[in-house]
């Protein structure tokens, strides 16, 4: 079953084409990574898919719902964990989760259940009374993902989820992301090759708004003729210039 179908999606800003005629299909429960150098169009793609910006042309369908015509329905099945941590700094960890429960209109019982479940899943139980603004980068990211998951999304967008984290915090977050695999469709953008390779079912590599390749990490390496994924990425991105 298809979770996301992208049809000729294009976004132009004045003279710049941020995303150029993108066509993709992502399966339900798949963990799909968007890779690319800066300005490749990854974040713009996520912004269009999450109804934060309108496409110039083309459309995408999330569980059959159009991002152009049915934004309310799309918003009800998605969640975004943006590049910046996007937490309320003056609120505690618990209050941040409570805020999002309220925004989604949860009753008390559901709120308590969801918060307890996510505190456990994201390993936040010991810091529930700590203000979000005082958390370390790793814990802020965990809280950000917990806030995204609280609305029980069918599709989760993780924009650079491990950006700026140390090796241990990144490894912890990878475990959390792995634990979500199959339960929710995840679209992840990252600059880290090893992250994409370790976590993803399939990877799309973008450059200058265009899709260069979309396949499994192993297949991409095979096509690029190397055992190293980073080398494969470089060859594919450089190759398109030649």
């Amino acid at each position, binding site marked *: 079953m298809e979770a996301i179908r992208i049809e000729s999606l294009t976004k132009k800003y004045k003279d710049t084409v941020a995303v150029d005629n993108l066509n993709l299909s992502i399966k339900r429960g798949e963990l799909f990574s968007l890779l690319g150098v800066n300005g490749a169009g990854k974040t713009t793609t996520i912004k269009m898919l*999450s*109804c*934060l*910006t*309108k496409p110039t042309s083309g459309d995408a369908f999330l569980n059959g719902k159009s991002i152009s015509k049915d934004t*309310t329905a799309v*918003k*009800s099945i*998605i*969640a*975004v*964990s*943006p*590049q*910046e*941590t*996007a*937490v*309320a*700094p*003056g*609120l505690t960890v618990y*209050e941040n989760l409570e*805020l*999002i429960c*309220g*925004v*989604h*209109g949860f009753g008390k019982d559901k709120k308590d259940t969801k918060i307890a479940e996510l505190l456990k899943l994201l390993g936040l139980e010991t810091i529930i009374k700590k*203000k979000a603004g005082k958390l370390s980068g790793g814990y802020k990211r965990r809280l950000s993902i917990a*806030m*995204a998951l609280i*609305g029980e999304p069918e599709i989760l967008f993780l924009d650079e989820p491990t950006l700026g984290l140390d090796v241990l915090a990144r490894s912890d977050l990878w475990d959390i992301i792995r634990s979500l695999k199959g339960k929710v469709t995840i679209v992840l953008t990252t600059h880290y090759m090893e992250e994409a390779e370790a976590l993803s079912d399939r990877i799309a590599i973008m450059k200058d708004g265009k899709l260069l390749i979309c396949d499994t990490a192993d297949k991409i390496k095979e096509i690029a003729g190397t055992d190293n994924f980073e080398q494969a990425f470089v060859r594919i991105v450089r190759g398109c210039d030649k």
Partner: protein
Amino acid sequence: MRMLIFAKRNTKEILRDPLNLGFGLGFPLVLILLLSAIQANVPVNLFEIQHLTPGITVFGLSFMTLFSATIIAKDRGSSLTQRLYTTPMTPLDFIVGYTLPIVPISVAQCIICYLAAIALGLEVSINILYAVLYIIPVSMLYVALGLLCGSVLNDKQVGGICGALLTNLSAWLSGIWFDLDLVGGVFEKIAYALPFVHSVEMERAVLNGDFAGIFPHLWWVIGYAAVAFILAVLLFLRQMKK
């Protein structure tokens, strides 16, 4: 319901910042005490407590602009608004949620100023209650200015524009610290074309029981508040679509 939950979050964010409490509540109190001490030693008609207090209650509201603009700008900067745009929250939820907390804080600030003024010799009368009520349209004006600035500026710019420029405009062009007749000319004309002096003169009229003297100042305040609010909403919606 969502707007109330969001308003509750904003109230917590504002009240938990010690700088906000210091400037919002402490600074107007310091001004009343300081200027009353000056008045005790060197009597100046302008600094008599029944003349001074309405001006200070209006000047204190410039910090409300700073509070509302800062919280919006910070939410935009941290992508919290971006996260919330992908939830079922509507533009109305955002606008009411950002506006609602400031009004009771403004009223509380006004009450504290009047309590201090009573302790310093202001005669207790029902007019104090009316003065507190009439501060509400003035606070709406200042909140609208905050919403407007927060929608277009980042948090550093907000500090400069609202923290420095607006507080100075509100101070110099309001007739609180000196009689505008003394300067006269273009300066006085500019001051009377802006809402600050009208806010102060309206509050002075209310406190002195001169209810005929409320007009036309009230119309200036309501007119500016309405225009600022419409502009703020349009700019907020514009940045939301961006």
